[in-house]
């Protein structure tokens, strides 16, 4: 559905162009049963390749069991442009919903991670390439609303080829709308953690997904505004094999960390703890604190004028 989708296929290693089974590792060709993959968090046991994870399964992986409550689940795209290309937009939507069981490319709600409440917004690349339209934008904002209302952090997990062309300018405006949601979080001091999964490109990475107070990515994910094929076709430049990948982005200053999927829940739990209010702690070993010394130095008098003292520890 998006310019990036095509490149994503290429980047995921399927150079031969042949149709591969979704449970066959595109990297090492190992094949897994679906329950095996689900059990391994959809990480290849042989080569550590990270398979795509659907939104609902991602929520299962990350949240405490039974803690998730969805918001905006009943929203559906409305085709305001009456858009038809080779196929009507409404048909594409129906196909996507039938294929994924989802109403759009993002699932929003709230839940808990190791007991700490959090709002969540999780994308699903299988729904029209994780494209960003009106419903995705509104659902993301509903998750942010929850975060603001309950003063709990927001965590997003993104996987997107970019904006949904079938909604054209309204799709573009979802960039402004979702960034506005981040602004509302910042206004009240609610933390936002952005997790970038393969691929996060186009309008999604050029809006909310880049604005996390902390931004982490899964290994090997393609994270770029324009995909490698668009870059090559438009500018004639060659792209390196690691173009736009998580590891390059870390080196280039765009990420706080690359976190393997097996560690993701743990790292998010740690961040939720760090972003939580101070705890009373037992006062360690009770060593006596040094006293504030006095000094005959004249500077003290100047500092004293401003209510500032000096001491020797």
């Amino acid at each position, binding site marked *: 559905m*998006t310019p990036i989708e095509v490149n994503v296929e290429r980047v995921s290693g399927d150079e031969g162009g042949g149709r591969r089974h979704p449970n066959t590792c595109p990297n090492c060709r190992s094949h897994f049963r679906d329950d095996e993959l689900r059990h391994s968090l959809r990480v290849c046991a042989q080569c550590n390749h990270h398979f795509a994870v659907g939104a609902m399964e991602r929520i299962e992986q990350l949240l405490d069991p039974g803690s998730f409550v969805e918001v905006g689940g009943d929203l559906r795209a409305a085709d305001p442009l009456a858009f038809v290309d080779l196929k009507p937009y409404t048909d594409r939507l129906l196909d996507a919903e039938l294929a994924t069981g989802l109403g759009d490319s993002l699932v929003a709600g709230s839940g808990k991670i190791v007991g700490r409440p959090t709002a969540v917004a999780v994308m699903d690349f299988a729904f029209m390439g994780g494209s960003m339209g009106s419903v995705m934008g509104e659902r993301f904002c509903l998750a942010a609303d929850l975060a603001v209302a309950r003063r709990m952090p927001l965590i997003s997990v993104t996987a997107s080829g970019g904006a949904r062309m079938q909604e054209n300018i309204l799709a573009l405006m979802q960039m*402004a709308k979702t960034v506005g949601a981040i602004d509302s979080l910042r206004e009240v001091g609610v933390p936002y953690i952005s997790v970038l999964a393969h691929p996060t490109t186009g309008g999604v990475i050029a809006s909310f997904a880049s604005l996390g107070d902390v931004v982490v990515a899964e290994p090997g994910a393609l994270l770029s*505004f324009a995909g490698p094929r668009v870059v090559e076709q438009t500018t004639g430049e060659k792209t390196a094999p690691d173009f736009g990948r998580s590891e390059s982005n870390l080196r280039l200053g765009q990420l706080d960390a690359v976190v393997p999927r097996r560690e993701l829940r743990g790292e998010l739990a740690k961040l939720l703890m760090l972003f939580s209010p101070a705890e009373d702690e037992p006062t360690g070993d009770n060593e006596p604190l040094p006293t504030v010394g006095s000094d005959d130095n004249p500077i003290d008098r100047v500092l004293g004028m401003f209510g500032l003292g000096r001491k020797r520890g």
Partner: protein
Amino acid sequence: MVRVSDEVRRLRKRFEARAEESQIWDAVQLARHPDRPYTLDYAERLFSDAFELRGDRAFSDDEALITMLARYHGQTVVAIGHQKGRDLAERTRRMFGMPHPEGYRKAIRAVELAERFGYPILTFVDTPGAYPGVNAEERGQAGMIARSVLAFCQASVPIVATVIGEGGSGGALAIAVADRVQMQENAIYSVISPEGCAAILWKDAGQAKKAAYAFRPTARACLDLGVIDTIVDEPSGGAHADLDASARLLDTALRLSLAEAEAIAPAHRRALRRAKFRAMGVWGVADEPTNQDF
């Protein structure tokens, strides 16, 4: 079963009914006309004094996007606009109006300056898009566009954006979040170029005309969809036919939009601007409220 509001049905009908195909393609061509006035052409005619603010204080001065302090009807404003360049040398120097991250970093700097002194911000949007090159990507094109959008969201000063030519995708939106958004009559504003859309959805860039008709990048469609507030008239034949007349028409609209933006209480401006964009989008409501496998 999805319930869709009457409003959306009415919108759809309107779009289906209009035989505006040729009109849309005219706009695409006028928006890209090589003689179309650019940001600096308007700056010359609208501002009594101007001082260009250059550089991102980090990497370079990106000439695809210009920022300036300027005097507009007796008050100081910060102007921010894409600049395509007129002859080949200038076009190359200005990358055909396609900014690198440095351009957006310069825009953010200008927004911060405006915010520091309470100056209104006027933006002029005219770009095929952010530059899609390897270096631009490596220096964080996506993140810088996001941060520019955020800077425009966070500002408490009045902001008026005008799409004066091509409003191309995220590279345009990066400086187009405003209290009032205007489009010139023959400007276009879209999430991807007609050619790009055609290449992907029709598997044939030659179908650009068909794509343009399907996704309607016109001022009229943007107004109908609630994305812009004002359509700015152009001289007959298009903005390039008479630069002075075009500037006068823009001036008239700009003064009114700016007055409206200034009339909003500064303490509410940020929240109202957010609410304005929050309202953008249309959707229906399904009977089954949740996802299937949940």
